[in-house]
Protein backbone atom coordinates (compact mmCIF):
# COMPACT_ATOMS: atom_id res chain seq x y z
CA UNK A 1 0.00 0.00 0.00
CA UNK A 2 1.32 3.41 -0.98
CA UNK A 3 1.03 6.43 1.28
CA UNK A 4 -2.72 7.27 1.69
CA UNK A 5 -4.03 9.61 -1.00
CA UNK A 6 -6.00 11.98 1.22
CA UNK A 7 -5.85 15.76 1.18
CA UNK A 8 -4.38 17.19 4.37
CA UNK A 9 -6.09 19.98 6.29
CA UNK A 10 -2.78 21.60 7.10
CA UNK A 11 0.81 21.17 5.97
CA UNK A 12 4.10 22.47 7.28
CA UNK A 13 7.25 22.05 5.21
CA UNK A 14 10.75 22.83 6.36
CA UNK A 15 13.36 22.85 3.61
CA UNK A 16 16.20 21.03 5.34
CA UNK A 17 19.82 21.80 4.49
CA UNK A 18 22.92 20.64 2.66
CA UNK A 19 25.51 18.58 4.46
CA UNK A 20 28.48 20.73 5.37
CA UNK A 21 30.80 21.25 8.27
CA UNK A 22 32.01 24.54 9.65
CA UNK A 23 35.49 25.11 11.02
CA UNK A 24 36.33 28.30 12.82
CA UNK A 25 39.93 29.43 13.35
CA UNK A 26 41.20 31.33 16.38
CA UNK A 27 41.11 34.49 14.32
CA UNK A 28 37.40 33.97 13.75
CA UNK A 29 37.69 33.13 10.09
CA UNK A 30 35.16 30.50 9.12
CA UNK A 31 35.75 27.69 6.67
CA UNK A 32 32.97 25.44 5.45
CA UNK A 33 33.34 22.11 3.70
CA UNK A 34 30.45 20.85 1.64
CA UNK A 35 29.93 17.08 1.90
CA UNK A 36 27.06 16.62 -0.53
CA UNK A 37 25.23 18.23 -3.40
CA UNK A 38 21.73 17.24 -2.32
CA UNK A 39 19.62 19.00 0.23
CA UNK A 40 18.36 16.63 2.90
CA UNK A 41 16.69 16.59 6.28
CA UNK A 42 13.57 18.39 5.07
CA UNK A 43 10.55 17.82 7.28
CA UNK A 44 6.89 17.66 6.39
CA UNK A 45 4.18 17.80 9.04
CA UNK A 46 0.72 16.87 7.83
CA UNK A 47 -2.60 17.10 9.65
CA UNK A 48 -5.79 15.35 8.66
CA UNK A 49 -8.53 16.80 10.85
CA UNK A 50 -11.89 15.16 11.53
CA UNK A 51 -11.63 12.24 9.17
CA UNK A 52 -13.40 8.89 9.43
CA UNK A 53 -11.73 6.25 11.57
CA UNK A 54 -11.70 3.98 8.53
CA UNK A 55 -9.54 6.57 6.78
CA UNK A 56 -7.35 7.20 9.82
CA UNK A 57 -6.36 3.58 10.12
CA UNK A 58 -4.92 3.68 6.58
CA UNK A 59 -2.03 5.70 8.01
CA UNK A 60 -1.30 2.99 10.56
CA UNK A 61 -1.51 0.34 7.84
CA UNK A 62 1.03 2.26 5.78
CA UNK A 63 3.22 2.82 8.83
CA UNK A 64 3.30 -0.95 9.32
CA UNK A 65 4.05 -1.65 5.68
CA UNK A 66 7.14 0.56 5.68
CA UNK A 67 8.21 -0.87 9.05
CA UNK A 68 7.80 2.42 10.85
CA UNK A 69 10.70 4.74 10.25
CA UNK A 70 12.81 2.05 8.58
CA UNK A 71 11.80 2.14 4.89
CA UNK A 72 11.43 5.17 2.68
CA UNK A 73 8.62 6.03 0.30
CA UNK A 74 7.34 8.72 -2.04
CA UNK A 75 4.29 10.88 -1.49
CA UNK A 76 1.21 11.21 -3.74
CA UNK A 77 0.24 14.53 -5.32
CA UNK A 78 -2.69 14.87 -2.88
CA UNK A 79 -0.21 15.78 -0.16
CA UNK A 80 0.61 18.98 -2.07
CA UNK A 81 -3.04 19.92 -2.65
CA UNK A 82 -3.53 23.68 -2.56
CA UNK A 83 0.12 24.43 -3.35
CA UNK A 84 0.33 26.40 -6.57
CA UNK A 85 4.11 26.66 -6.69
CA UNK A 86 6.47 24.13 -8.21
CA UNK A 87 5.60 20.70 -6.85
CA UNK A 88 9.23 19.85 -6.25
CA UNK A 89 9.71 22.87 -4.03
CA UNK A 90 7.90 21.19 -1.15
CA UNK A 91 9.01 17.67 -1.93
CA UNK A 92 12.29 15.85 -1.56
CA UNK A 93 14.82 16.39 -4.38
CA UNK A 94 15.30 13.63 -6.92
CA UNK A 95 17.07 10.77 -5.28
CA UNK A 96 15.64 11.46 -1.86
CA UNK A 97 12.64 9.82 -0.24
CA UNK A 98 10.51 10.30 2.81
CA UNK A 99 10.39 8.23 5.95
CA UNK A 100 8.43 8.57 9.18
CA UNK A 101 10.16 10.77 11.71
CA UNK A 102 7.72 9.68 14.42
CA UNK A 103 4.69 7.40 14.53
CA UNK A 104 1.41 8.78 13.16
CA UNK A 105 -0.67 10.21 15.98
CA UNK A 106 -4.42 9.62 16.07
CA UNK A 107 -6.71 11.71 18.24
CA UNK A 108 -10.25 10.42 18.60
CA UNK A 109 -12.64 13.35 18.30
CA UNK A 110 -15.96 11.60 18.60
CA UNK A 111 -17.27 8.13 17.76
CA UNK A 112 -16.14 7.32 14.23
CA UNK A 113 -14.20 10.57 13.73
CA UNK A 114 -10.50 11.11 14.37
CA UNK A 115 -7.68 13.50 13.57
CA UNK A 116 -4.31 12.28 12.39
CA UNK A 117 -0.94 14.01 12.44
CA UNK A 118 2.03 12.67 10.47
CA UNK A 119 5.64 13.80 10.73
CA UNK A 120 7.95 12.91 7.86
CA UNK A 121 11.59 13.58 7.19
CA UNK A 122 13.38 13.56 3.84
CA UNK A 123 16.45 11.33 3.61
CA UNK A 124 18.94 10.37 0.94
Amino acid sequence: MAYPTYKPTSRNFSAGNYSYKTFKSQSGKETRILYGDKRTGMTLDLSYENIADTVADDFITHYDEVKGGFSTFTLPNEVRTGWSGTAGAIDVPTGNNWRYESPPSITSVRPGISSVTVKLVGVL
Partner: protein
Amino acid sequence: MAKVYTGRDGRLLLGSNILVKVTSWTLQADLETLECTTLGDSQRNYVPGVQSFSGSAALLYYVDSDNTNDASTLLQKLVRTSGVTTSDTVSLTLRLTNGGTNNDVTLTAYITSASIGASVGEVVSAQISFQGTGALTTANL
Protein backbone atom coordinates in the same frame (compact mmCIF):
# COMPACT_ATOMS: atom_id res chain seq x y z
CA MET B 1 -57.88 22.97 11.83
CA ALA B 2 -55.18 25.56 11.88
CA LYS B 3 -53.55 26.07 15.24
CA VAL B 4 -51.42 28.88 16.54
CA TYR B 5 -49.66 27.87 19.73
CA THR B 6 -49.44 30.34 22.58
CA GLY B 7 -48.20 30.32 26.11
CA ARG B 8 -51.52 28.78 27.13
CA ASP B 9 -50.44 25.59 25.36
CA GLY B 10 -47.12 25.36 27.15
CA ARG B 11 -46.48 22.91 29.96
CA LEU B 12 -43.43 21.88 31.94
CA LEU B 13 -43.39 18.46 33.52
CA LEU B 14 -41.05 17.18 36.20
CA GLY B 15 -41.15 13.44 35.73
CA SER B 16 -44.80 12.83 34.93
CA ASN B 17 -46.12 15.70 37.02
CA ILE B 18 -47.15 18.95 35.40
CA LEU B 19 -45.53 21.80 37.26
CA VAL B 20 -47.98 24.50 38.17
CA LYS B 21 -47.28 28.22 37.93
CA VAL B 22 -44.68 28.01 35.23
CA THR B 23 -44.48 31.34 33.42
CA SER B 24 -42.02 30.44 30.68
CA TRP B 25 -39.63 27.83 29.37
CA THR B 26 -37.09 27.74 26.60
CA LEU B 27 -35.17 24.92 24.95
CA GLN B 28 -31.86 25.32 23.15
CA ALA B 29 -30.59 22.52 20.92
CA ASP B 30 -27.07 22.75 19.52
CA LEU B 31 -24.92 20.73 17.19
CA GLU B 32 -21.16 20.95 17.36
CA THR B 33 -19.68 20.93 13.88
CA LEU B 34 -16.21 19.60 13.14
CA GLU B 35 -14.34 21.27 10.33
CA CYS B 36 -12.86 18.96 7.70
CA THR B 37 -11.85 21.55 5.11
CA THR B 38 -8.75 20.40 3.29
CA LEU B 39 -6.01 22.31 1.51
CA GLY B 40 -7.26 23.38 -1.91
CA ASP B 41 -10.91 23.72 -0.86
CA SER B 42 -12.60 27.07 -1.48
CA GLN B 43 -15.48 26.46 0.89
CA ARG B 44 -15.44 25.15 4.40
CA ASN B 45 -16.69 21.61 4.97
CA TYR B 46 -17.98 20.11 8.17
CA VAL B 47 -19.01 16.80 9.67
CA PRO B 48 -21.53 16.62 12.50
CA GLY B 49 -20.19 16.43 16.03
CA VAL B 50 -22.08 16.00 19.25
CA GLN B 51 -25.46 17.49 20.11
CA SER B 52 -26.30 19.28 23.31
CA PHE B 53 -29.51 20.46 24.87
CA SER B 54 -30.09 23.14 27.42
CA GLY B 55 -32.79 25.54 28.44
CA SER B 56 -34.36 27.61 31.10
CA ALA B 57 -37.64 28.07 32.87
CA ALA B 58 -39.30 30.54 35.19
CA LEU B 59 -41.67 29.44 37.93
CA LEU B 60 -43.64 31.28 40.56
CA TYR B 61 -42.58 30.42 44.10
CA TYR B 62 -46.00 29.06 44.93
CA VAL B 63 -47.29 26.66 47.57
CA ASP B 64 -50.23 24.65 46.30
CA SER B 65 -53.22 23.65 48.38
CA ASP B 66 -51.66 20.20 48.88
CA ASN B 67 -48.56 21.92 50.29
CA THR B 68 -46.38 21.18 47.25
CA ASN B 69 -44.00 23.78 45.89
CA ASP B 70 -42.83 22.97 42.38
CA ALA B 71 -40.26 25.74 42.25
CA SER B 72 -38.77 24.49 45.50
CA THR B 73 -38.38 20.97 44.09
CA LEU B 74 -36.19 22.27 41.29
CA LEU B 75 -34.35 24.85 43.38
CA GLN B 76 -33.34 22.20 45.89
CA LYS B 77 -31.45 20.35 43.17
CA LEU B 78 -28.89 23.13 43.32
CA VAL B 79 -29.57 25.29 46.37
CA ARG B 80 -28.57 22.77 49.03
CA THR B 81 -26.06 22.13 51.75
CA SER B 82 -24.63 18.97 50.18
CA GLY B 83 -22.87 18.71 46.84
CA VAL B 84 -24.58 17.82 43.60
CA THR B 85 -24.06 14.22 42.55
CA THR B 86 -24.77 12.25 39.40
CA SER B 87 -28.08 11.15 40.90
CA ASP B 88 -29.32 14.73 41.02
CA THR B 89 -30.68 14.73 37.50
CA VAL B 90 -34.27 15.55 36.75
CA SER B 91 -36.48 14.37 33.94
CA LEU B 92 -38.04 17.41 32.33
CA THR B 93 -40.68 17.41 29.64
CA LEU B 94 -41.28 20.59 27.71
CA ARG B 95 -44.71 20.31 26.17
CA LEU B 96 -46.86 22.14 23.70
CA THR B 97 -50.31 20.68 23.91
CA ASN B 98 -53.11 20.78 21.39
CA GLY B 99 -56.11 19.20 22.99
CA GLY B 100 -55.33 15.51 23.22
CA THR B 101 -52.14 15.84 21.19
CA ASN B 102 -48.91 16.58 23.00
CA ASN B 103 -45.74 17.77 21.34
CA ASP B 104 -43.09 16.83 23.85
CA VAL B 105 -39.37 17.06 24.34
CA THR B 106 -38.19 15.01 27.30
CA LEU B 107 -34.64 15.13 28.56
CA THR B 108 -32.61 14.19 31.60
CA ALA B 109 -30.95 17.30 32.95
CA TYR B 110 -28.94 18.90 35.68
CA ILE B 111 -30.12 22.18 37.11
CA THR B 112 -27.14 24.39 36.36
CA SER B 113 -28.33 27.71 37.68
CA ALA B 114 -31.09 28.89 39.91
CA SER B 115 -32.03 32.35 41.03
CA ILE B 116 -34.80 33.67 43.16
CA GLY B 117 -35.55 37.08 44.53
CA ALA B 118 -38.22 39.05 46.33
CA SER B 119 -39.27 42.57 45.48
CA VAL B 120 -41.87 44.87 46.93
CA GLY B 121 -45.02 44.73 44.87
CA GLU B 122 -44.00 41.67 42.87
CA VAL B 123 -44.73 37.98 43.01
CA VAL B 124 -41.73 35.89 44.01
CA SER B 125 -40.48 33.85 41.10
CA ALA B 126 -37.54 31.58 40.45
CA GLN B 127 -35.51 31.22 37.28
CA ILE B 128 -33.69 28.00 36.55
CA SER B 129 -31.38 26.88 33.80
CA PHE B 130 -30.80 23.27 32.95
CA GLN B 131 -28.25 21.31 30.97
CA GLY B 132 -29.36 18.11 29.32
CA THR B 133 -27.23 14.99 29.69
CA GLY B 134 -27.42 12.13 27.22
CA ALA B 135 -29.88 11.73 24.39
CA LEU B 136 -33.40 13.10 24.41
CA THR B 137 -35.92 10.62 25.76
CA THR B 138 -38.71 12.04 23.63
CA ALA B 139 -38.43 14.41 20.70
CA ASN B 140 -41.84 15.11 19.29
CA LEU B 141 -42.01 18.80 18.60
